[in-house]
């Protein structure tokens, strides 16, 4: 029996009407009333920008912060594939219910029913909103919106703008935000890092920021703080995330009492361009769609150094087709990734590092012609050739899985509020909707659902019950103390006079996390990670070097502040992975697998969200929110 001690606060009642009914009970403010309140939003990617724009439309005074120079630089911009919506324009039997079910199942039954249903419901409004803003989605010749299928789902519900859907959606949200900037309802603070949340009388009432241009540490007070700060894939050093994506804002909130949920649920995308050498800074994703025509294989023999073209068919192992005759190369992301790791660990990996597998288009080119392949994947092939200097029309691509998205994040209730009153979290930065594995084209959907359609209602309800501050309270003790603490921390970092660049320490950390809390985990590895990480922490605090001044642009200091938090997070991830003695979705514990090497869930003991409380000296404390499935039946996923 799971001992539950954390509750989602989702209203009771029928799942299908719950959100609409609940919305009616939420308190509203008129534009004039809303004008009394100040809202702080950290992060201006899809979730943050859409929330800022909508809150401003409702009359709130929004102060939006980003470490970027412009909202348009947020990493939401790099999403390629598309955004799901249950519009059923194709008449192929899609519905809100079906999107809801696919998402729950895709998440391997580790997400909250109420939130996921709401997400599926809202998905339709998102498309309407984006089209009205001028997002140039792909269209059919008749002028109607086009859809494609994506990520192993059986219906076509993905809206897309070539391979740049994230860019177009972000530019849409950015334009809505810009419109409010012009109206002076949004004030945008570029190049600001958030370094602390300030809590006064038990409620989040402000933040501490560092201006990256001049190092100024400043307090900002507000009636509510919303975090929209994205995911933490960069804890692995190498990931498909942007270089500066970080966990700092979330981690600082966590240290102030916000619970961190399912930190070890991280998604590994199977088709990325492999690491080529030690200088690699960042990994590049190749769209999942390539697996429609590409065949994955490795040599049957270990340490086979022949060129791929010299390896005859009978000496190749098309392992996905062999293990999964039904789905073949099209198994879901987590399965494809784990199998690639397995063959490489056996010593059958290819390329200079041995950590890559072939993705071969030879048969598709032979059967369908080079022109067909060029038409369909030309952009991707060009990108691959640009990066690797190899021609994928002639020689198979080399691919390897890479960290791509984090399902874990700050724990939030149905209203998207964290366990700190007045502190909300939206988009990838919260844990809410994807369970243990995210389906393709769902991240954009969630970011915009939270920002445009959920937080404006729930935050307004919260504020309507709060007396507005109506003045700056940054002179008060809590703020002054928080500034002093932040300054001390920076001073301490600047005073370390070691030999290492912070990137070097980060790379070390990444390797430990990747090896032990990566695609497959086991007790021995996780325990060794828990031994290694404190050593890295020690090295960080004693042996890094940050040249220059903290009162100036100092990109090394920015990195150091982020890596400091990544190190602490890495420890929590290992704790979480160790605690969850089952395999589910992207969390694969080698001890818990079926005879056919598939993930083995333990619903009896682990059907819960693991939310961790920060404890200063010692082990984090675990809180559990039991997951209840009243509307779907728990099943084991099978792709054979």
């Amino acid at each position, binding site marked *: 029996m799971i001992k539950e001690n954390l509750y989602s606060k989702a209203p009771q009642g029928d799942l299908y009407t719950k959100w609409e009914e609940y919305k009616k009970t939420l308190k509203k403010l008129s534009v004039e009333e809303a004008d009394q309140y100040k809202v702080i939003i950290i992060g201006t990617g899809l979730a943050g920008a859409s929330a800022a*724009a*909508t809150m401003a439309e409702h009359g709130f005074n929004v102060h939006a912060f980003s470490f*970027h*120079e*412009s*909202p*348009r*630089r*947020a*990493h939401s*911009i*790099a999403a390629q594939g598309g955004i799901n919506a249950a*519009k059923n324009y194709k008449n192929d039997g899609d519905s809100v219910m079906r999107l809801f079910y696919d998402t729950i199942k895709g998440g391997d039954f580790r997400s909250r029913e109420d939130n996921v249903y709401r997400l599926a419901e809202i998905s339709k409004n998102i498309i*309407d*909103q984006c*089209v*009205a*803003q*001028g997002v*140039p989605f*792909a*269209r*059919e010749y008749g*002028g*109607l*919106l086009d859809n494609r299928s994506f990520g192993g789902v059986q219906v076509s519900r993905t809206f897309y703008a*070539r391979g740049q859907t994230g*860019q*177009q959606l972000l530019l849409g949200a*950015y*334009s*809505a935000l*810009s419109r409010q*900037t*012009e109206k002076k309802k949004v004030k*945008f603070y*570029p190049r600001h890092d958030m370094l602390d949340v300030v809590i006064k009388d038990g409620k989040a009432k402000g933040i501490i920021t560092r201006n990256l*241009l001049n190092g100024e540490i400043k307090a900002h007070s507000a009636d509510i703080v919303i975090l929209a700060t994205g995911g933490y894939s960069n804890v692995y050093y190498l990931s498909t995330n942007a*270089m500066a994506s970080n966990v700092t804002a979330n981690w600082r909130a966590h240290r102030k009492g916000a619970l961190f949920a399912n930190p070890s649920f991280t998604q590994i995308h199977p088709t990325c361009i492999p690491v*080529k*050498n030690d*200088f*690699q*800074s*960042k990994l590049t994703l190749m769209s999942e769609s390539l697996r429609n025509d590409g065949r994955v294989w490795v040599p049957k023999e270990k340490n086979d150094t022949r060129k791929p073209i010299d390896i005859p068919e009978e000496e190749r192992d098309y392992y996905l087709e062999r293990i999964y005759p039904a789905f073949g190369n099209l198994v879901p992301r987590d399965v494809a990734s784990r199998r690639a790791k397995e063959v490489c660990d056996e010593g059958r990996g290819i390329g200079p590092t041995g950590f890559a597998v072939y993705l071969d288009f030879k048969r598709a080119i032979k059967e369908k012609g080079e022109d067909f392949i060029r038409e369909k994947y030309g952009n991707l092939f060009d990108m691959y050739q*640009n*990066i690797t*200097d190899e021609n994928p029309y002639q020689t198979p691509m080399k691919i390897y899985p890479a960290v791509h998205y984090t399902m874990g994040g700050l724990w939030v209730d149905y209203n998207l509020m964290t366990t700190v009153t007045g502190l909300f979290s939206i988009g990838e930065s919260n844990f809410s909707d994807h369970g243990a594995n995210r389906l393709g084209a769902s991240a954009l959907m969630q970011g915009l659902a939270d920002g*445009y*359609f959920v937080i404006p209602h729930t935050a307004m309800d919260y504020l309507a019950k709060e007396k507005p501050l109506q003045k700056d309270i940054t002179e008060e003790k809590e703020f002054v103390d928080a500034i002093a603490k932040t300054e001390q921390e920076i001073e301490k970092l600047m005073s370390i006079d070691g*030999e*290492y*660049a912070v*990137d*070097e320490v980060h790379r070390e950390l990444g390797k430990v996390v990747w090896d032990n809390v990566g695609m497959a985990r086991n007790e021995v590895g996780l325990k060794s990670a828990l031994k290694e990480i404190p050593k890295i922490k020690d090295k960080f605090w004693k042996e890094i*070097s940050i*040249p220059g001044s903290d009162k*100036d*642009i100092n*990109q090394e200091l920015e990195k150091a502040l982020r890596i400091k938090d990544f190190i602490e997070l890495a420890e929590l991830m290992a704790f979480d992975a160790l605690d969850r003695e089952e395999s589910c979705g992207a969390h694969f514990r080698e001890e818990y697998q079926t005879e056919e090497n598939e993930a083995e869930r333990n619903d009896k003991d682990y059907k819960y969200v693991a939310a961790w409380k920060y404890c200063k000296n010692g082990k984090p404390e675990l809180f559990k929110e039991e997951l209840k499935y009243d509307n779907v039946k728990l099943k084991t996923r099978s792709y054979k």
Partner: protein
Amino acid sequence: MNINLKIWRQKGVKEDGKLHNYRLENVDPNISFLEMLDILNINLVKEKRDPVAFDHDCREGICGSCGFMINGRPHGPQRATTVCQLHMRSFKNEDTIILEPFRAEAFPVIKDLSVNRQVFDKIISSGGYISANTGEVPEANETKIEKKYADEAFLSSACIGCGACVAACKNSSAMLFTSAKVSHLSLLPQGAKDKDARVINMVATMDEMGFGSCTNTGACSAECPKEISQENISRLNQDFIKSSLMGILKRNK
């Protein structure tokens, strides 16, 4: 391969800068240009010297953060490629590579190769949007948009706002950037709403921000990493003429 770098070093907005020489040996030709700078910076940090500041983030050529002049060309020698997607194999052993920030009065240098492009946000907020409050919009498929126009609009909206157009232009004009947004929105039926005010206001803001004016040299398009077409400028001009005339006619009625 070995390379010689001449990099513009400048401490801050108000300070003067100059080119400094650096040499890197045994560079793997398969690393990216920014990875080469990462290596240089790690070396500098280890020598307790100030690393070179440059903007970058996604390293996939889409966020628009990166960009500086490489041998006098924004984003370097390769067509339709941002700096982050450029690789060292585009250079030869013992090449001397000159790195300078994007130069324009409207883009003050913050430090080294990093410039401030916030004026772009100002141009967008003066009209680069369609007024549509959240939730108060029609069903998405109610308005059909001919594929031709949807595709054109997409091509215009592919701009990543990196500022290469301004840096390439001998007049530091922001016309390609501004016109791409004006075109994107005016090609779509939804954009008709704010059309007249949009073009007039965005041009006015662009002028105020200290950009030069367009003399149609075409350098912007040629250097644009997303190959945004010159036709956008023509379309902006067309809109500008129409909207100006309409405005005058309306008010004199």
